[in-house]
């Protein structure tokens, strides 16, 4: 924010420079100090981010990698922990509980992200139309996102309650027996995915909406004259032009989705929620990580899981990137990219 506000006045001299009158450079510079200022102060402005990232992001990342190579118990120090190389990694790669948590995470990620992005696109398209009370509606879709994870999870957990839940009651009207949603994998996945969708669909819709608004109206007008239907316009014009935004949203959703924690934890409930249920039905990788730390006191192994999760997210982001890149694209690529970066 501060960087933006300080650079904004720069735009004016920039325009002047492009004009016929040459800028009066000697007058502007104030000697060596002034030149140093112009040359280096931008680095100083961005430095706080990198300093903070270095302390709270990069350093823990490296330290975690180091810990993952040790048999590091609660109470161990660098001196007392035993170096075990990649034993921890090998152990988890052969651990069915770890893979179970990976499968759960990926299943919930797919079950939540795919419908979520499609819904968000459709929602954004609807909000992009001329509607009465447009601003109110646009702000409204963000409300689920600003409610806390805990509140959403608790309310949804009650909706999915076996004996007194609204969902079982509605299903009961159609003659379906009460479902114990936490008892099986598929049912807990459905319940948790629906919580994620509730929170994030509106948020993604707003990002799509912002990108849609940068698509020039005249393209749609000429398409209408050519006789293209609204649906056709949406799929052959809007979606391809949103490609960079779709890539962005997909990657962000991947990073968030694969770190799913709060919803499944609160949905599981009970005395040992970190296990994700009686048969680890809804244990995600992050919950598996926390199990190593809080239940087993194995700090080294927890660090290992953290790195495995990091690698998993990297793999998924690359797959996403390759996949979304191959989406159909309209002509005028440069223009879209400018549009999407707003």
């Amino acid at each position: 924010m501060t960087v933006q506000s300080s650079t904004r006045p720069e735009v004016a001299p920039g325009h002047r420079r492009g004009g016929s009158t040459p800028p009066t450079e000697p007058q502007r510079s104030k000697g060596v100090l002034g030149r140093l200022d112009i040359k280096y102060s931008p680095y100083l402005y961005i430095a706080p981010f990198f300093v903070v990232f270095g302390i709270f992001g990069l350093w823990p990342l490296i330290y975690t990698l180091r810990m993952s190579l040790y048999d590091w118990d609660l109470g161990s120090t660098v001196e007392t922990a035993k170096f075990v190389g990649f034993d921890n990694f090998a152990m988890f790669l052969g651990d069915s509980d770890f893979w179970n948590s990976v499968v759960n995470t990926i299943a919930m990620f797919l079950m939540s992200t795919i419908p979520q992005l499609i819904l968000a696109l459709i929602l954004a398209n609807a909000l992009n139309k001329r509607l009465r009370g447009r601003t109110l509606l646009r702000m409204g879709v963000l409300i689920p996102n600003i409610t806390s994870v805990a509140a959403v999870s608790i309310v949804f957990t009650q909706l999915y309650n076996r004996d007194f839940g609204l969902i079982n009651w509605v299903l009961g009207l159609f003659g379906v027996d009460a479902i114990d949603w936490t008892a099986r994998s598929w049912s807990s996945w459905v319940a948790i995915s629906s919580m994620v969708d509730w929170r994030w669909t509106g948020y993604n819709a707003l990002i799509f909406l912002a990108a849609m608004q940068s698509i020039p109206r005249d393209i749609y007008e000429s398409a209408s004259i050519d006789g293209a239907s609204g649906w056709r316009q949406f799929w052959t014009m809007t979606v391809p032009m949103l490609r960079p935004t779709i890539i962005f949203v997909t990657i962000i959703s991947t990073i968030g989705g694969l770190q799913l924690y709060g919803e499944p934890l609160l949905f599981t409930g009970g005395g040992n929620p970190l296990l994700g249920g009686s048969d680890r039905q809804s244990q995600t990788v992050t919950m598996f990580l926390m199990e190593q730390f809080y239940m087993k006191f194995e700090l080294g192994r927890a660090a290992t899981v953290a790195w495995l999760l990091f690698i998993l997210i990297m793999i998924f982001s690359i797959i996403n990137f390759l996949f979304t890149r191959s989406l159909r694209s309209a002509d005028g690529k440069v223009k879209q990219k400018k549009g999407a970066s707003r």
Partner: protein
Amino acid sequence: MSTNMRRRSFAAIALAAAVTLGAAACSSEEPGTGTTEQITLNVDVFGNFGYEELYKQYMAEHPNVKIVERGTGSQLDAHNQQLTQRLAAGAGAGDIVALEEGVIISYLDKANLFTDLGEYGAKDLAGNFIPWKFQQGTTADGKILGLGTDVGSMAMCYRTDLFKKAGLPTDRAAVSALWPTWDDYIKTGQTFKSKVKDAGFIDAVTNTYNTILMQKAGQGAGYTYFDKSGAMTIDTNPAVKDSYDLAVKILDAGLSAKLQAWTQEWNNGFKQAQFATIACPAWMTGYITEQNGADGKGKWDIAAAPGGGGNWGGSFLAVPKQSKHAKEAAELVKFLTNPAGQTASFKSKGNLPSSPQALADPAVKAAVNEYFSNAPTGDIFAKGALDLKPVYLGAKNAPVRTAVENALRTVEQGTKKSADAWTAAVTDGKKAAQ
């Protein structure tokens, strides 16, 4: 010009901020280490230990000590997670921390994180505690990790309204006479279920299973999943398999309301009268009172647990190694856990003492609970606690117990057959012990 000015001042501010941050990081205050000067002892607890009056008394007797209790009323899970983090970080934990029964066991093989209270004279205090309670806080090589505060003991709470509906007796002596053994308890449950269809006889099977296991282990080998050498005995100790089979028998008889403990559904179960009996340590009476609220008053009563005494829950006070005032903290622990301290805690918050002297105190022994149809709680629970034989629990008891509990829950939920679930319990239990 003005841009330049602004830029410079930004640079200056950024620089100033960086310098201040660095300075702040270096200038954290070192607390005093002298023994005669003023010191502060932080006591980290969960829930309510009822120590307020004791603190006042102690501070009056020791003018140089200031006691600050932290975490009063907090949840056990949150307390444990915070403690784990602080122990891992090597700083931030209180000078005294409360360790719940299941928690202290998991720290037994990490005794280096705590001060051995034996060094401060705790060894001579064994007589102040029920033997099994004192043993739970002691490591295999004799280090005293923590001194006991309260115990849970064990009884069976039951709903007189549902018992009446099923045509069963409601008087506590008559109800106790219905179930001298767990098989009698199951038979009573079947009678109950034949009359009342819309409520379970028990809330869920896991807590009942744990109660049975502790009883059977006490009557048998004196250990559960690990013998005293630390070897895994989940598939060799008959007490474990017998208790598992008995729990499955309860499930096969269709007695469970299948409400997982500590969930919202379970809490609702109290209010909606979804089950007739629940394994009931002393502190559970407080939980029932809170969950069932005013309209449950007089609808509950307390009978003896089938199969003899037992215990579930209760806590210890320990001094983390990272404390800078280990000696003073140890003195305070001894003060808070002595018989008089335990009686005071019972009077304040109803925590059942773990000291035989306190349990014999008229203030404890004669106590009745109005909510539970004036049941003589002091007498009922004291008997249960004193009857119990010591049971050795290994350091990895908690994860193994969870594995068996979860196996039983899959049987309860109908997702696994009991034989398959037992195989899973043994496999997962062994894995959890690694």
